[in-house]
């Protein structure tokens, strides 16, 4: 008997749009010798001292559960780190939870604050998971589209325009994936005024905080009046090159954390113990290595931004993360056509901008989490691809004449 599985499936789950990245992944993965600028994670391996610490923890038998919120020792280090790096104060005992990646922190935040129908403003282009996470928690994602003209920065006016009495929170991500855009203190302060005026919360995804290049990073929680309204999300994945460890953390007012911890207890229990041990070492003894990686990204960013602009793919200089988001409008192609052609003809993988929301159409995301040598080759290939596009356009025009 054949079963109609459709009848069993949740409409929410079915309604989720598949990630636009998936399709591209399948295509790129089937090819050989691809240079990938499509990777959303560091090319560095986790520093050895951190790995060694986790190995030792495993050898010493740290194989049981920890407290739901994570090892107190780790939460203490997280608290010190947040104070030291970003001047925000959180009590390790009741204001911090160690999660399975920043991804899970985001999930936890929305499950904790959303009632059915509550609206969350998402600034696009945005990380692919955001709208799905809000939807799964019963909320309604409201897209706010930014544009290249002002460096993909959201303005208070834009926020005002879409705020309704259903709006519960704004999801901010600075430095941003996919645009690399960083918001400085003044820009965050301007947003804070809107948050205050409409009595909102802010979920601040600060996972790229360590990777900030031209200015000091400002945590949204450090803006006057915003500490009480901020759910701060950060983690080890990007700055510490620990994506595969699946470790992040969430910090917020105690009143919110106490509800989150209930959900976390039922869904997850705790993050992996031996990996939490490694994370303690990461916060204690790797600032030099984190800085060294940051220097590498900084140099690559400078290189790739100039190269792309020379090729004619206009892009702004992003203040953080490891992405650039150049315009491909000159090619006359859609983002997907451009990316597919580039992959097939020159074997360079990038992610089409529309994977990050409709406002990403006309752009591609290039990750510079790859060696400068690879980036140089990729830039040559993209240059050649652009030339061939221009040539074929000219021949087509001539034919018309």
């Amino acid at each position, binding site marked *: 008997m054949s079963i109609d599985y459709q009848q069993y499936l949740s409409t929410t789950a079915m309604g989720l749009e598949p990630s636009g990245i998936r399709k591209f992944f399948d295509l790129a993965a089937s090819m050989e010798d691809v240079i990938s600028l499509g990777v959303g994670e560091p090319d560095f391996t986790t520093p050895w001292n951190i790995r060694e610490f986790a190995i030792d923890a495993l050898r010493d038998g740290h194989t049981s559960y920890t407290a739901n919120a994570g090892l107190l020792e780790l939460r203490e280090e997280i608290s010190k780190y947040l104070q030291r790096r970003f001047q925000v104060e959180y009590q390790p005992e009741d204001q911090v939870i160690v999660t399975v990646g920043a991804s899970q922190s985001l999930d936890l935040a929305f499950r904790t604050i959303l009632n059915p129908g509550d609206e969350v403003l998402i600034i696009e282009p945005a990380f692919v998971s955001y709208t799905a996470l809000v939807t799964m928690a019963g909320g309604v994602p409201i897209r706010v589209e930014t544009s290249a003209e002002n460096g993909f920065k959201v303005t208070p006016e834009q926020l005002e325009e879409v705020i309704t009495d259903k709006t519960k929170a704004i999801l901010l991500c600075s430095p941003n994936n996919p645009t690399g855009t960083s918001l400085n203190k003044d820009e965050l302060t301007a947003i804070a005024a809107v948050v205050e005026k409409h009595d909102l919360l802010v979920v601040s995804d600060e996972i790229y905080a360590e990777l900030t290049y031209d200015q000091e990073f400002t945590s949204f929680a450090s803006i006057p009046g915003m500490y009480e309204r901020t759910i701060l999300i950060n983690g080890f994945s990007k700055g510490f090159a620990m994506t595969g460890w699946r470790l992040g953390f969430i910090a917020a007012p105690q009143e919110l954390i106490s509800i989150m911890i209930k959900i976390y207890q039922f869904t997850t229990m705790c993050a992996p113990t031996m990996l939490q041990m490694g994370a303690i070492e990461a916060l204690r003894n790797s600032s030099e290595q984190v800085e060294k990686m940051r220097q590498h990204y900084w140099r690559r960013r*400078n*290189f790739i931004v100039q190269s792309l602009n020379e090729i004619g793919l206009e892009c702004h200089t992003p203040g953080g993360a490891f992405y650039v988001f150049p315009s491909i409008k000159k090619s006359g192609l859609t983002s997907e056509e451009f990316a597919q052609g580039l992959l097939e003809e020159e074997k360079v993988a990038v992610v089409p901008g529309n994977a990050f929301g409709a406002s990403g159409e006309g752009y591609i995301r290039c990750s510079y989490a790859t060696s*400068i040598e690879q980036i140089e080759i990729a830039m040559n290939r993209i240059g050649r691809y652009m030339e061939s596009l221009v040539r074929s356009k000219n021949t087509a025009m001539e034919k018309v004449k």
Partner: protein
Amino acid sequence: MKLTNQELNILAILDENHSVSPKSIAMQLETTEENVNKLIKKLEEEKIIVSYPTLINWNKIEGKETIVAMIDVKVTPQRGVGFNEVAEQIYRYPEVSSLYLMSGTYDLSVTIEGKSMKDIALFVSNKLATIENVVSTTSHFMLKKYKHDGVIMEGNEDKDRRMVVSP
């Protein structure tokens, strides 16, 4: 000598790969090619950049395998003849690829490269040991090079294990 951040950045780039073009360095550091050329020249003149060696794994090439030995040399310095004079007599030999003055139980550490163990043995007995003031030599033959000048020779550490495209 104190260097500027820009000069330190140039050194960091060259330290990883000396064949990077000045144009690439300029782009990476948001400056001009002329400026990079000028600074590199200055660093060369100051002997901060001493040379640009290429790290070659000769042992991968048939017929080009080399044997390396590190030799601990004890020296009795005599009146008027310091370590420097003895060192000079040793480092002039082309077989000697490096030479360091050491603290501890011996004085000079000599690295020698040769085609065979016999080559090296001959060099030690005929040349090194006969130098006046050299009291004793202890030879250690290198069996395998795992890491050289910060570079891991073989191994999986640098393998890219990431998925080709990810969010």
